[in-house]
């Protein structure tokens, strides 16, 4: 039977660590988390995320909790595909440095945000949380995005998610946009996660799961 320490070492944790904050990556407890489930999933495929708060000094405690809940929901959805959400690296861009990117006014600005910034870890996918996204758009991402983000290729690198003040919506959007980046396109099925609009049923087919696991950002099992 695999131990917590073995899995932790596999995902880059050593010495003393907090299970909730370091192993799971939550800032607070989003609900009842299952250590057994996460240990099992990490034996298969996993993806790590750079979670970047754009205009971090403007994020309220409620906004930060909403990110936790969104990741929790994403773990539930991806778990049905035997895909673990592994390490979460929390990062931030101050409002002064963000220079307005915390409020996305158009798709072009979302693309510019991903061009101008890059998460700290080259082997983790960049997810930018912004405070508002104008219009009826709630998120934006490249489809089948690149992995070699440190090697300066000209392609949109990352996904942009708006804080919706509705944890269920933000969770679906997070899972949906990351799935785009990992290669999935829209599907006209309101029960499917990749339906063009949210809210939706959040389900994924076995074919979609297989495609997700084949992306270059997805790491092999521990």
């Amino acid at each position, binding site marked *: 039977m695999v131990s917590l320490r073995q899995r932790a070492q596999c995902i880059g944790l050593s010495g003393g660590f907090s299970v*909730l904050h370091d192993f799971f990556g939550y800032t607070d407890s989003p609900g009842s988390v299952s250590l057994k489930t996460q240990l099992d999933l990490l034996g298969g495929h996993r993806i790590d995320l750079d979670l970047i708060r754009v205009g971090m000094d*403007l994020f309220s405690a409620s906004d930060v909790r909403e990110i936790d809940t969104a990741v929790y929901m994403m773990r539930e959805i991806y778990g049905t595909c035997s895909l673990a959400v592994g390490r979460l690296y929390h990062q931030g861009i101050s409002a002064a440095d963000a220079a307005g990117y915390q*409020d996305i006014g*158009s798709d072009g600005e979302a693309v510019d945000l991903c*061009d101008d910034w890059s998460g700290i870890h080259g082997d983790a996918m960049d997810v930018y949380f912004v405070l*508002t996204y104008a219009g009826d*758009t709630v998120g934006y991402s490249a489809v089948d995005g690149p992995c070699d983000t440190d090697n*300066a290729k000209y392609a949109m690198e990352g996904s942009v998610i708006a804080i919706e*003040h509705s944890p269920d919506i933000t969770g679906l959007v997070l899972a949906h946009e990351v799935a785009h980046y990992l290669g999935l396109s829209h599907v006209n099925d309101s029960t499917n996660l990749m339906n063009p*609009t949210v809210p939706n049923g959040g389900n994924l087919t076995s074919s979609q799961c297989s495609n997700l696991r084949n992306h270059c950002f997805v790491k092999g099992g521990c």
Partner: protein
Amino acid sequence: MSTNFAPPPEDRRPLDAARLRAVVAGRSSEIPRARAIALIPTVAGAAALPELRALASNEREAVGDRKMAIAALARLPGAQAPAAILEVARTREPHVLGEAVRQLGWIGDASALPRLEEVARGDRGNLGKKASFAAALIAHRLRLPGHELPSPAAVATVALGDQVKPIAVRRLAGPEIGAFSRLIPDLPPGLKVDGPASLHLDCAGREQWIAMDQEVALHPAALAGEKAMPAVVALRNLTTGGVSTALVALTTPTGRGAFSIGLYSRNGSLRFAGHGTIHGDAAEFELRAVARPGAPAVLIRCRGANGHLEITEAKLGPIASPARRPKPIAIG
């Protein structure tokens, strides 16, 4: 690809103004309030102006909701929306003021300039820069004196280097030409674009249009005589087909039949810089990507004459310096 908000499909009631207003008024929480605010213009049109103005002006409302209300006001048809946003711009709340300033730059008229000047004088940070840019946008769009931006000619650009790829360019064809002016819903007021003076670019998988103003396309020599906003660059969403403005061109005469040109993002960041010259009734200009973290090298050379725009050279090179990095946040 983008994801949009819409009510669950099993909910067959129309998402009408009544439902949205119930959410905004706090009588319902069936959809996120900020989304309801954003959607009101699409169902209520100009009739939504009074409630959006009231929401945006209310200092007791959440900042995020006020910002969404300002963005929604900017999407309303008619001349009253700029005046409503200018009213909101009296606020001292910096983030709400920042959004009002941003939207005024896009749709405002000369009446907004005094307030924008006041904000620019009063803040040395990002808010002041936004206000200066907003004033410059109005001045260029309406060809008013003053409100100059730093010259793009002084800015360092990215050298192309050896590993260059061509950028695919083509003219618009068939149905695209007739529909073109309707394709870009957020054009600045007064800019009239048409198909013959516009070009489609495919730049490393990004589908964009350079759309030139009809009047400038017919009389490009005017660029050497007065400042202008001659063109926008629009980006296409490959999933929805929706198009939105990504960059705006601002030109300023520099004397002797020449002009400087800069392409700016909507939030005021200079992305491309260059210069142009007038030869008879034609304008030739060159643009290069501004050196900044994460920017690839780009060279575009254009010629505009007789109502047409032609790209004579378009190349894409590698990114010279890596993108900026966020700071880690310790948790727990």
